[in-house]
């Protein structure tokens, strides 16, 4: 043997010996540790601690990294000791206990084990520093934990899980349990994962969730039949609250979402439709305005997938039927009476009812339904579904325009406050959003605006402009540009009038012969009015002449067209008893003036002299001879004017007032308005189609229709058939062509 070999042999022998000696000391230490845990002995003294630590340290120092004999031995011995400890002490104690007692034992044993391992790893810390790293094995501590996990925990985990679940269910049924114990037990599960949650989830949570599902499934199947919808919902809320509470007290926080999901699933998802469709369900709650219950319903159904779809559907149906009911009621009450006055009130009743409905159900969507988009959409669809029906023979666009007119007239005569007007306008604009024929509304509004501006004495400029601003915000500038022009025209008219007065003052030759006010309207803005070639009485002719000279001097390149049908005049009627001032339309004035020169005139006389059309003349004569104020006597004295009648000035006429208005009834031109709007729509559709095709160059049929509808949606809802016709027209006019291969494809022809 060489010297080195001999040395080595000695060393090896020495090492084995040293190992045996050192470990013996360690075993003593371990035994003491066990006793400490069993509370049979008190803590290590400092000397004991130092002795153990130093022995291990020295041993480890002798370790030769070539064979790692010492460290390997130490490591193995340690492992065996721990395992022996578990086998001999821990497992038996766990085995013979059950339920709560077993759980307590588990908690205690784990805690003890942690202490033991902590101490031992301190003693063996040298191993961690070098050996463990070099050999890439578990650290001393981890090894200790693994032994527990595999041998003790592994054996008892099923029992433990079952015991915990049993306790949870006991608590659910109202029993008292030791929450702290459960928290500790579940902490054991969690700690087994050393940072990962998988032991907790695999060995406990999964089973707990399944069990929870079963539990609530049973409960739900009872409750759904026994309980009313509100009661059931209360129970659900309660259960969710309790389970959440449970998590915060002893379950791991990661369980919360999964647990609540299980509960919601069993209580709500499975029975959602049944619950909503109960007699005491969603419809009943809406019917009875049970706001609290509806809020609860929202809260509960909000969290489950597609939960609100069914609720939204019922809500939509409910609002829809409320709308239809309102319409029916009003139709029955007012439209079946033929009174026009009653009809007018009825219109406003319709709009005010709609507004009330909208207020009510908007409050629901913002309140109970927390502004949820799905419910908002349901509300919108419901309103759209009944706001576009024809009521009392005319569309809601018309009704709404009448309502606006009514509000603005009232505002003009200051019967309602500014705030009330503002509020009403907001409501009107909101309702307008649901009406698809917005262009029809615009046209009716324009006509009514025109009458207000020209005939109403109490037009409030501010209100009118405010209303147009609100409309513009909602529908865009194109919608309101004409009406704004009209309002501006009237504002300018005053200025123009001043200029005219100045002209008259400065120009002696210009004598109209009477007080004359002329409103000059810009053609494009105002509705078109039928002009007639009225042969004015001489007195009026002079007026027109004078103004014409003034105007032509003022501006060039403008053509004036006189619309006498819109004018008013004041005439003094020198009756026998007294003179009464008559405020009449220009047409009526023209007829009356004829009687200055003739006592008795026939229908045809009047017609020829003034060059009236029959329908106009009949209306005029009717208003003067057959209505409330009989300024003219008609022969024969029948109710209606006929072309064979004769008329005389009724000198016997009198009235207690000194000034009376004799209005000319407005011709109902609704049909014409609708016709005009229809025509405009054709042009709009054409323009939209061309614009789209110009941009896209080539587009499929359905896509073209979709985009066209989209483009026009904020003015009206075009009929698909009409669009198709316009496309065909454009094809015929060579704006578009069909693709040769695919007849469903259109190409723009430049």
């Amino acid at each position: 043997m060489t010297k080195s070999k001999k040395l080595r042999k000695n060393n090896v022998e020495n090492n084995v010996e040293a190992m045996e000696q050192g470990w013996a000391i360690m075993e003593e230490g371990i035994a003491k540790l066990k006793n400490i845990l069993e509370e049979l002995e008190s803590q290590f003294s400092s000397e004991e601690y130092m002795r153990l630590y130093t022995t291990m340290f020295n041993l480890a120092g002798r370790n030769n990294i070539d064979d790692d004999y010492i460290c390997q031995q130490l490591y193995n011995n340690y492992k065996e000791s721990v395992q022996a400890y578990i086998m001999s002490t821990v497992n038996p104690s766990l085995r013979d206990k059950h339920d709560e007692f077993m759980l307590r034992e588990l908690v205690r044993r784990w805690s003890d084990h942690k202490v033991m391992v902590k101490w031992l790893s301190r003693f063996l810390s040298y191993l961690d520093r070098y050996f463990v790293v070099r050999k890439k094995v578990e650290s001393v501590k981890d090894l200790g934990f693994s032994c527990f996990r595999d041998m003790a925990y592994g054996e008892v985990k099923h029992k433990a899980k079952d015991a915990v679940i049993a306790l949870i269910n006991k608590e659910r049924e109202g029993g008292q349990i030791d929450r702290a114990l459960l928290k500790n037990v579940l902490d054991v599960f969690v700690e087994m994962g050393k940072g990962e949650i998988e032991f907790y989830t695999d060995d406990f949570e999964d089973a707990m969730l399944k069990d929870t599902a079963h539990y609530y499934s049973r409960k739900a199947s009872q409750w759904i039949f026994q309980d009313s919808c509100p009661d059931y919902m209360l129970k659900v809320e309660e259960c969710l609250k309790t389970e959440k509470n449970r998590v915060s007290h002893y379950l791991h926080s990661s369980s919360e979402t999964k647990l609540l999901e299980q509960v919601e699933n069993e209580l709500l998802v499975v029975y959602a439709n049944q619950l909503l469709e109960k007699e005491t369900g969603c419809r009943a709650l809406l019917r009875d305005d049970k706001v609290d219950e509806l809020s609860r319903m929202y809260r509960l159904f909000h969290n489950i997938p597609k939960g609100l779809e069914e609720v939204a559907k019922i809500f939509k149906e409910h609002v829809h039927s409320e709308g239809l009911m309102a319409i029916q009621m009003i139709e029955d009450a007012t439209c079946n009476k033929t009174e026009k006055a009653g009809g007018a009130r009825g219109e406003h009743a319709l709009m005010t009812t709609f507004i009330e409905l909208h207020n009510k159900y908007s409050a629901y969507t913002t309140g109970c339904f927390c502004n949820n988009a799905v419910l908002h959409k349901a509300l919108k669809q419901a309103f759209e579904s009944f706001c576009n029906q024809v009521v009392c023979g005319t569309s809601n666009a018309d009704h709404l325009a009448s309502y606006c007119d009514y509000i603005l007239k009232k505002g003009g005569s200051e019967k309602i406050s500014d705030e009330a007007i503002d509020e009403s306008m907001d409501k009107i604009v909101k309702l307008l959003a649901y009406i698809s024929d917005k262009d029809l509304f615009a046209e009716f509004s324009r006509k009514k605006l025109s009458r207000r501006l020209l005939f109403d004495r109490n037009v409030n400029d501010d209100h009118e402009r405010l209303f147009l601003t609100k409309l513009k915000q909602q529908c865009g500038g194109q919608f309101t540009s004409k009406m704004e022009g009209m309002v501006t025209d009237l504002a300018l008219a005053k200025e123009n009038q001043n200029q005219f007065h100045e002209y008259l003052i400065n120009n002696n030759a210009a004598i109209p012969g009477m007080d004359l006010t002329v409103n000059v309207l810009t053609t494009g803005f105002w509705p078109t009015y039928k002009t007639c070639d009225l042969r004015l009485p001489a007195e009026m002719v002079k007026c027109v002449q004078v103004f014409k000279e003034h105007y032509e001097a003022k501006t060039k390149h403008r053509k004036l067209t006189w619309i006498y049908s819109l004018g008013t005049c004041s005439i003094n009627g020198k009756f026998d008893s007294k003179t009464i001032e008559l405020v009449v339309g220009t047409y009526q004035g023209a007829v009356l003036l004829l009687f200055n020169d003739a006592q008795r005139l026939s229908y045809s006389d009047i017609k020829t002299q003034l060059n009236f059309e029959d329908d106009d003349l009949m209306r005029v004569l009717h208003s003067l001879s057959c209505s409330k104020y009989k300024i003219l006597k008609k022969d024969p004295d029948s109710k209606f004017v006929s072309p064979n009648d004769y008329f005389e000035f009724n000198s016997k006429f009198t009235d207690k007032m000194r000034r009376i208005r004799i209005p000319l009834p407005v011709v109902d031109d609704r049909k014409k308005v609708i016709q005009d709007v229809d025509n405009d729509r054709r042009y709009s559709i054409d323009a939209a189609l061309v614009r789209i095709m110009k941009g896209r160059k080539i587009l499929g049929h359905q896509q073209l229709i979709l985009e066209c509808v989209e483009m026009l949606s904020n003015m009206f809802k075009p009929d698909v058939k009409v669009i198709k016709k316009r496309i065909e027209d454009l094809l015929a006019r060579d704006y578009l062509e069909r693709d040769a291969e695919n007849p469903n494809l259109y190409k723009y022809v430049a």
Partner: protein
Amino acid sequence: MSGSSSKKDAPNSKRPFNSGAMDRFLAAAHKKLSSEAERIDQLFYSYAITPPWVIQPQGIDTLCSDLGIHHTDVRILMLAWKMQAEKQGYFTLDEWRRALTALRADTIIKLKAALPELEREVRRSSNRANFYSYAFKYNLTEEKQKFIDTETVCALLNLVLRSEFLPQVDALIHYLKIQTDYRVINMDQWMGFYRFCNEINFPELDNYDSDQAWPLIVDDFVDWIRSHRG
């Protein structure tokens, strides 16, 4: 123009076989073909008997009776198609030549014999749509005319589509006669009818989708059929 004459001449003039026979054959063939062209022209002038030297309506009538067909027979329309005749009721020399050369018909007998083949050619799928649209254009007698009155259209449908799509044509003609919305038909609508007959199951109409780009008149026609089915 009249048939091709130069056959494949070898680049060098040395011919391996009896070139003389070849030449004679070629000359004879050429002469035959030239004669054919001449005969075609001759035939033309037998119907175009006055200035301005085109076959006019009376000439066409005579032609029809010589061919043994009625002047409203679809085959005269097919002949016009073969000629790509531009003006209804008139055949020019070029048009005449175009058709008869293609048909290899230089006598009236041969022309008559060529008619069945012509029919088959028209009915071939590659030509059918072309013939159909030609039928419409052929009836646009005025310059810049874009539509044909419904009654003429009915007759035209009968002529052109009856043999293939009898039930559809009957239904369509019935509909066109009783409806009042459309007094005239344009090319797009005309082609719509053709597509309808070809693509849509009749009388089930189960594969008709009014959301597609069918002309409105076809949509209305389908609605009418469906409402009358009861």
